[in-house]
């Protein structure tokens, strides 16, 4: 499957030295090759670190010291040029000027292509604006700039060379970062649809109630006027997180978000309306006692095999007898594997939670290679989910 690994090209990939086709090839390989992706993470860290290296200031005395040395040097630089005729100088100057101009143009072109701090935006309908200016056919979204659509406008953003984002009407987005190791957009309100073919965790969308981290996928994300959001994943996986609270959302599933609280519990969209309504109440209504018991009952009764996605996340989000009930139902739907115990799960033992989750994945959309590798990258999720429970 991995006919040719790409480890040799990874620095060039991170440094933007490759063509768009080469970059896409590398990105696609990284999606399916764990070995190269591990190397990519290492090199990406090295690139980040090297980028922190500051240019130092030469001592202020250097020029005066240099001048003294020049004066003391008998060989004047002009002497080297003096024997050369005026016409020879003129010809050299002309050639040098042409070359310098050509090199300068090439440098600027390469720089603007490979390190451009903006994304290209195409108008799809109406009159989207960047800043205060309307886009005609195409515009540039620079770092810090807002792209806004009204009720009749739509636009499409080329996310460097890693994907595309379509902006729906009445949406406001801002470009926060674009570099080889991170591309970040802010969605203040409205809806966007992202299709990203980059390696996991290169493309992020900040919203008022969560950060969506792409894991190689397609999804829509919307935010209302008070900052509440809804993520719907159509392929791959997306991680939602805020202040250490994290939800993993696979294809076919959705997850609501709320300011302050962060991401709710993910659920498959074909779950019943009452299941979804009950889940919203558990996530965001701070229910306790009998009220929580009653709402939880709806979820547990209606949970199907694939709703173990929801139940697994819920384990860390409820406490006491509520957690015991979630465990019991989960254990009926998908019996705990060897190495997992009731006590361990109730105490949110990270290794046991992870082990059980690995077994549950099959019912969350098939054990595809991509999903397996993406999930394995999500090694910190269990700990984060546990952290939430401790805060609550």
């Amino acid at each position, binding site marked *: 499957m991995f006919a040719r690994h790409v*480890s*040799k*090209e*990874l*620095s*060039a990939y*991170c*440094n933007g*030295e490759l063509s768009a086709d080469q970059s896409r090839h590398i990105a696609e390989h990284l999606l399916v090759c764990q070995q190269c992706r591990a190397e990519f993470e*290492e*090199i*990406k*860290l*090295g*690139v*980040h*670190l*090297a*980028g*922190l*290296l*500051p*240019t*130092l*200031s*030469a*001592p202020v005395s*250097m*020029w005066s*010291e*240099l001048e003294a*040395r*020049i004066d003391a*040097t008998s*060989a*004047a*630089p*002009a*002497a*080297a*040029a003096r024997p*050369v005729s005026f016409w020879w*100088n003129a010809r*050299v*100057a002309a*050639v*040098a*000027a042409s070359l*310098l101009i050509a*090199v*300068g143009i090439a*440098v*600027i072109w*390469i*720089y603007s292509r490979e*390190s451009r701090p903006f994304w290209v935006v195409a108008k799809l309908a109406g009159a989207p604006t960047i800043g205060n200016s309307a886009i005609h056919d195409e515009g540039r979204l620079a770092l810090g700039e807002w792209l806004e659509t009204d009720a009749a406008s739509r636009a499409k953003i080329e996310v460097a060379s890693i994907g595309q984002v379509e902006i729906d009407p009445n949406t406001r987005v801002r470009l926060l970062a674009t570099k080889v*190791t*991170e591309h970040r957009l802010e969605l203040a309100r409205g809806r966007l649809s992202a299709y990203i073919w980059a390696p996991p*965790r*290169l493309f992020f969308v900040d919203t008022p109630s969560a950060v969506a981290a792409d894991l190689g996928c397609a999804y829509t994300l919307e935010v209302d006027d008070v900052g509440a959001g809804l993520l719907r994943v159509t392929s791959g996986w997306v991680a939602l997180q805020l202040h250490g609270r994290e939800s993993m959302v696979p294809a076919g599933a959705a997850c609501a978000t709320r300011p302050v609280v962060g991401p709710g519990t993910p659920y498959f969209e074909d779950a019943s309306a009452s299941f979804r309504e009950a889940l919203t109440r558990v996530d965001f209504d701070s229910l306790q006692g009998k009220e929580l018991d009653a709402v939880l009952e709806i979820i547990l009764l209606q949970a199907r095999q694939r709703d173990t996605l929801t139940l697994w996340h819920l384990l860390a989000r409820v406490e006491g007898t509520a957690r015991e009930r979630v465990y019991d139902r989960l254990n009926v739907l998908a019996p705990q594997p060897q190495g997992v115990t009731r006590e361990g799960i109730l105490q949110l033992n990270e290794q046991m939670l992870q082990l059980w989750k690995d077994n549950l994945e099959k019912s969350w959309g098939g054990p595809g290679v991509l999903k397996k590798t993406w999930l394995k990258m999500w090694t910190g999720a269990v700990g984060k989910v546990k952290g939430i429970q401790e805060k609550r």
Partner: protein
Amino acid sequence: MEQRAVMSETKIDERVIDACRQGDREAFRLLFETYKDRVFSIAVYSFNGDESAASDVAQQVFLKLMTSIGQFRGESAFATWLYRMVVNACLDERRKGKRFLSYGELTPMSRIEDRRPQEKQFARAELAESVKTAIAQLSPKLRMPILLKYMEGLSYQDMATVLECSQGTVASRLNRGHKELAKRLGHLKGQIGVGE
């Protein structure tokens, strides 16, 4: 950083270079002011933070530049030509041996940091200090491509010209350099927020 390099180079056009060929001191001063910090920085990192040795080598480079600029034919970018001179001067100086302090004796790089009030923010300065130390510990073969890439913003092609090797070798050395940095400073990953 790359942007800074490109912008600075735009000041040095053919007229400035030609004036330098004619011995124009002001033109040479402009050239010096444009490149002095970057030439000095490469030398400092090459000599493990020994500023005195770095300053001396930087001056040698500019002296040589002044006397040999007539040989610059514009076949490569001026900066590429200059950095080749810098790299050769640093390597020559290292070959001569003991002019600079060994790593264990080097002048603390934090003194350099003290001159940079814009980088006073403690955590960032500490991080930069760790990176500088790690860079200084790299072998010259791995360090030079890192410096040329991240301080000068050179392309792989230009680096290959400066270092007189193939682009593949440049890529390979950068790969090893990046990995070495990640290995030495992996514990700082949380501080720089990679992938968060």
